[in-house]
């Protein structure tokens, strides 16, 4: 499970970084989205990977046999924020396309 998750995060990050460095605004926004997926998975993994662990700590749960809720709360916040920011970036992207007439990140070709 760890290996699959690690490879997944790695592939997402690598694709994201490569796309951010591309000259078209659409590629940049997809790159940022992929990067934020990778980050979200990474935060989740920081709570340690485990199956069938209790989500909420109460007296019936033995010792440390529960899933860490903090990273899950963090991921939830991070997802909402990155979603909102992507939407905002999309608006700026469209405004830039309208104002400069090109989808190059520098506002001019070449």
């Amino acid at each position, binding site marked *: 499970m760890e290996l699959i998750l690690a490879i997944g995060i790695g592939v997402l990050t690598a694709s994201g970084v490569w796309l951010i460095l591309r000259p078209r605004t659409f590629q940049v926004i997809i790159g940022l989205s992929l990067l934020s997926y990778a980050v979200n998975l990474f935060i989740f993994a920081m709570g340690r990977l485990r199956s069938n662990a209790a989500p909420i700590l109460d007296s019936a749960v033995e010792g440390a046999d529960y899933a860490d809720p903090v990273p899950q709360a963090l991921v939830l916040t991070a997802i909402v*924020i990155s979603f909102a920011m992507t939407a905002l*970036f999309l608006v700026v992207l469209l405004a830039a396309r309208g104002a*400069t007439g090109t989808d190059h990140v520098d506002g001019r070709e070449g």
Partner: protein
Amino acid sequence: MTLADHLAVLPILLPLAVAALTLLLDERRRRLKLALSIGTSVVLIAVAATLLVKAGASGAVAATYPLGNWPIPFGIVLVADRLSAIMVLVTAILTLFALIFASARWARAGVSFHTLVLVLLTGLNGAFLTGDLFNLFVFFEVLLAASYGLVLHGSGATRIRAGLHYVAINLAASSLFLIGVALIYGVTGTLSMADLAARIPAVAAEDRGLLNAGIAILGVAFLVKAGMWPLNLWIPGTYSAASAPVAAMFAIMTKVGIYAVYRLSLLALGPDGGASAGFGQTFLLVGGMLTIVFGSVGVLASHATPRLAGFAVTVSSGTLLAAAGVGTPAVTAGALFYLVVSTLTIGAFFLLAELVERARGGEEDVLAATAEPFDEDDEDGGPDSSAEGGLVIPATTAILGSAFAICAMLFAGLPPLSGFLAKFSMLSAMIGTEAPSVITAPTWTLVGILVVSSFAVLIAMVRTGISIFWVTMKDVQLKVRLVEIAPVTALLAIGVGLSVFGGEVQAYMEDTAAALHAPWGMIDAVLGAPVVGGGSVSP
């Protein structure tokens, strides 16, 4: 619970509530919105001043405020100490004058200006007051979201292009922030800054590399905001493209990154930080010096005044980062003094830059094109909307010229003004008149770079001043409104006032630096802080 108990949360809640209120008001009721937002910043100045006095009187921490009344290491806590109080006060002052300046024309150049400024204020105050790493991220996002809107305020192709770069860079930096926070949480199991500082010395040796990697990645996210070379190539373009009051507000934005670097490096990586003590200090020192060099070269190469101001921001950031790299309490004290002076001066300089650029005939048509559609159904009417040029104040050139000269003196650090006092305080602490320690080669280099960079700033400012006030002014009738020149004068007057009360300010900064360099007082105060109702949960 009295109002005094809620003092620490007021700087966050008040602007947020007023921002929500202004959103409900019709876009045309600008006078009311202006009055609300100016009232908010005046109240915040009072709150911050109270916190400042309380923090000065009570030692380490003025107030802790457990949000939601959760027991301390588990819940989010707001911590108002001397450094937070200083930053909140500077933010409120800068906002007040930027708002007054914007009321002349910029507030009309687009929608929701006051709402965005208030949300920015919420984010800034939250970032300065929070004692929790993830909460810091949330407030960073709040202030960034507002700043994205503000960068684009006034529209136009240049702003959109600069805004696009700004948003992309900050989104990438936010990802780094999250990776850093997640790594730190994964290793230490806590997000509370005070708890983190207490746990870092005990981190197992095999996890130390992972922890340091997390801190380094988090640091890179802060340094993008703070503007360390080579992560600062976006700063001059974005800052010079933004409208003047927004750029003045952004003078504090780079300082958020600086604040985070000072706060976390001194709290978690201080002498008590175990094997992580002093981690990244050399990097900050070298990076800071390179940033000063980059900024100085940029200042010398700039012709447009806003661009000059944009590079001045990087010089200021570089100086503060390098001072963090030296990392002795005396240098930190000088650096904090310099932080306050340079932030207010750069804020004033951005406002002034717009006034002189307008006289030179830049900017004007860009604004005229964007302000037009919003002027049509202005129910306020009155002289504001008709008098495009404004009153001709007698001796405008003289007032602008002296403001420019004072700006140059404050920023370059010429005696007798506070810019000199701050720089002198830093330099004398580095050379160490009383300390017997050997001055290292990097410190000598930094001293040299600081002196040369001040000289470079002076040359650039004098050259620009000559080309504006002695050459082009001969046949140009300068028109400036009172509400535009008054904020500049007031900000510079604060800079001059800081030199008059230099002794008191310096003493306060020394106390602040001492408390920052001995964080155990603060850590104990935060971890031992009571929750309301006296209930406590043993971990």
